């Protein structure tokens, strides 16, 4: 399905044209990329998924300060009402999430409340596996939902990677595919071809050896490998050109998380065909959001980093008029218990909010606020199955077929302006 305009562009520009001119004139390349960016069709959208590992406390992220039950259940963890960034007379963002509050006001951020699934699994591994496989009924499911999405759009002519994981930890199971190889990278360097230092003339001569046409001997796989090789060089040079052209122009905070967002923004600019980016926050393993004791300070720092980094990413993309192509979604394996646990922490919960950010959102709070008294084993109940969120982004944002990924049709949410 992506053998369309992008490949057309490549053919008309010619790989070798890009190869010969790109490094010499990055601005030419970049502006042609920007030009291309202005003529996008819906199939060039990008999804960024960020995993908050450990089980994020939704109640201290989007705080129901207007509900007395909140303060009553959280004698030490309740956040001071006056410091919250109010959304309405009931809800407000965590004090350190000023940037999220701004994005929310600007319409670049939506909050889907009460997202979960029936019979919530309270173990990190089990719950995370469910969010990754998107199949709560099959604990042995061997592929992740993004891996299946990548497999579903594969065709023999594709030479681009449809999805990618960026981060220093082992690739999360969500990206596990039956067929395609979903790359894991740590930095842009991993997607840029390096050379043994030598003579530029020789280097271009060597590239020529890969570019020269091969006689057709009835082996279409050689042609496929040649196209893949050339596409690899072209994409590599696009990344280098974009990096040079936009080095340090956008402001990002100095967190590792923000650096990852900057990398993703560069890859979106380079337009190398990646439709889904997956990243992780919280440090892999059980994850930093798992706060059974002394939650307040740690949670505060994490939410601050998240909020500031997402805002920098949104602002960066907006400046380059790319935000309309990008949708970001967060998830965590579960929320936490309403009542704090006597150690200034909270237990593993069930439903939690999912954040969406991007340029094509309807905005606002989506779905009713879960009750703090009618609970699922001490935690807020879900009312929106997480697979409805997945189906929405697959069908209406990426233009994929969610049934091929989720096994059946889930009702989509009315959150996108597309």
């Amino acid at each position, binding site marked *: 399905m992506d053998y369309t305009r992008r490949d057309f562009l490549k053919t008309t520009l010619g790989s070798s044209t890009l190869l010969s001119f790109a490094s010499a004139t990055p601005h030419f390349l970049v502006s042609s990329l920007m030009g291309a960016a202005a003529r996008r069709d819906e199939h060039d959208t990008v999804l960024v998924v960020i995993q908050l590992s450990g089980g994020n406390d939704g109640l201290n992220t989007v705080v129901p300060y207007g509900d007395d039950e909140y303060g009553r259940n959280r004698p030490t963890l309740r956040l001071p009402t006056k410091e919250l960034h109010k959304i309405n007379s009931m809800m407000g963002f965590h004090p350190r999430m000023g940037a999220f509050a701004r994005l929310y006001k600007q319409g670049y951020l939506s909050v889907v409340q009460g997202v979960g699934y029936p019979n919530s699994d309270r173990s990190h591994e089990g719950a995370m596996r469910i969010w990754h496989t998107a199949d709560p009924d099959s604990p042995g499911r061997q592929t992740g939902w993004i891996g299946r999405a990548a497999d579903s759009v594969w065709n023999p002519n594709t030479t*681009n990677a449809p999805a990618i994981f960026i981060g220093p930890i082992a690739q999360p199971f969500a990206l596990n595919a039956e067929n395609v*190889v979903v790359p894991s990278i740590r930095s842009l360097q991993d997607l840029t071809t390096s050379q043994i230092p030598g003579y530029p003339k020789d280097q271009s001569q060597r590239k020529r050896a890969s570019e020269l046409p091969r006689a057709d001997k009835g082996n279409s796989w050689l042609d496929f*490998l040649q196209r893949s090789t050339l596409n*690899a060089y072209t994409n*590599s040079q696009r990344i280098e050109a974009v990096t040079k052209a936009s080095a340090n122009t956008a402001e990002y905070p100095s967190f590792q998380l923000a650096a990852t967002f900057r990398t993703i923004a560069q890859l979106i600019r380079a337009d190398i065909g990646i439709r889904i980016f997956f990243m992780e926050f919280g440090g892999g393993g059980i994850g930093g959001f798992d706060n059974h004791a002394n939650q307040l300070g740690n949670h505060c720092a994490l939410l601050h980093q998240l909020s500031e980094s997402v805002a920098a990413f949104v602002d960066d993309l907006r400046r380059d008029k790319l935000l309309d192509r990008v949708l970001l979604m967060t998830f965590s394996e579960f929320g936490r218990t309403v009542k704090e646990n006597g150690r200034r922490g909270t237990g593993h919960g069930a439903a939690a909010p999912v954040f969406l950010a991007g340029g094509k959102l309807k905005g606002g709070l989506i779905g009713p606020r879960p009750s703090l008294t009618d609970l699922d084993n001490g935690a807020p109940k879900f009312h929106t199955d997480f697979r409805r969120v997945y189906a929405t982004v697959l069908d209406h944002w990426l233009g994929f077929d969610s049934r091929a990924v989720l096994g059946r049709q889930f009702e989509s949410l009315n959150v996108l302006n597309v």
Partner: protein
Amino acid sequence: MVLQIDKPQGHNESKKAHPAIAEKLTDPVWAWREYQTDAQRPWNLAQAGHLYRRAAFGATWDQLQQALSDGPQRTIDKLMRPQADIGAFNSAYDEYESSGTGSAEGLRAWWLRRMILTPHPLLEKMTLFWHSHFATNSSKVKNARLMRQYVQLLRSHSLNSFQSLLKGISRDPAVLIYLGAETNRKALPNENFARPLMEVFTLGSGHYTEKDVQEAAKAFTGLFVLRGRLRYIPREHDGNLKHILGQKGDFTDDDVLRIVLEQPATAWTLVRKLYCWLICETDEPNAKLIAPLAKSFAKDYDILKLVETMLRSNLFFSPAAYRRRIKCPVEFALGIVKPLEGVISTTQLAQDLAGIGQNLYYPPTVKGWTGGRHWINSATMVERHNLALALLQGSGPYGNKLNPWAVAKKHGCSTSESAAGFLLDLFLQGDLEPDIRGALLKTAVAPADASDTIPADTVRRFAHAVVTLPEFNLA
């Protein structure tokens, strides 16, 4: 041995099928007959390289030259039944593995080292094949001892009887844990082994029904994995009558294996899969070609015989097989390492191979690695390029273990130009179109105004250019 450089070899012969041959490619009698060299199909460097890519992980220059003088069938004899003491080599490595760090990461590295140094590379090639066929992933098993035993099981049967291999698999704790089949109660038959047994390991979809899976699951009741060991608990076995694939009886696990092995579909599945691994994955195998091999394989399930028939065949040495597979990441990397006669850090290599899609001991699903075109996208091509660079650059994580200039000198080259011709022969057996060869060879000499004229660096850059060609990614 005579050094043969700067002469493209086997270029025309190997690519263009002689009209008489093209016609024979679908004739099973001709296809599976032993290849005999003649004027139309000479034995040359390209054919020797092809054989070593498929039956091993690439060849050194001496191996290629020896193959040229031995001829095809004698070379295959040596690959099938090497003279070396394989038993001693493998028990030494079994020892290293069991005294190692006790992690699957350590096991990955030992296996790659074994692949590089083994006197019997075909054994490892087939072990890798079975690792993908009976795929088991360490992240679920979480027990390095069991993973080690599982790969040892694959290795010890990889060229023997498929029947014994299947039986070993059906009782292997790592496999059962991976599939979620470690508990098989009478009251709650577990289909997690019976289903992949029929769908993936033997019959293939369309050759069994849901009912067959359910009934087979009953036959496996009583088998448990407890504390990493297989246990049979008789009172948990369902001794009732079962109906499986048209047979009925109070079947046990062994009966199920016997029944699926009696089905012709099982031999077909395996012959087709091996055909893709050893001969060609670019085109669906013609049923006429598979039929005689499947029929004969079904009689004894002798893997060695099947592999031998394929490797010795006219078809194997025909254009229908030549460069008709994409190298898996392991083949890609070892195809650089083996010819350069060095041993590199396989701990690092295992990690880098995981990055390009082949994480040994961690195949993605029970169906193993799909491979073929799926190995390739522009990102994995960049990563292959950079892995080749890391291996060849003489510094960094792989150190200076691979030195193409030193290898070229050892085999009689004295200038960077002659080394370049040598490397084209070593890596691609000179089989490259003349204009591409010409373009590459222009880079074999450092420019006149160059500040350094050390051939070693020029030759490294040249070697990197060769192994990043699209052609080098074909097996």
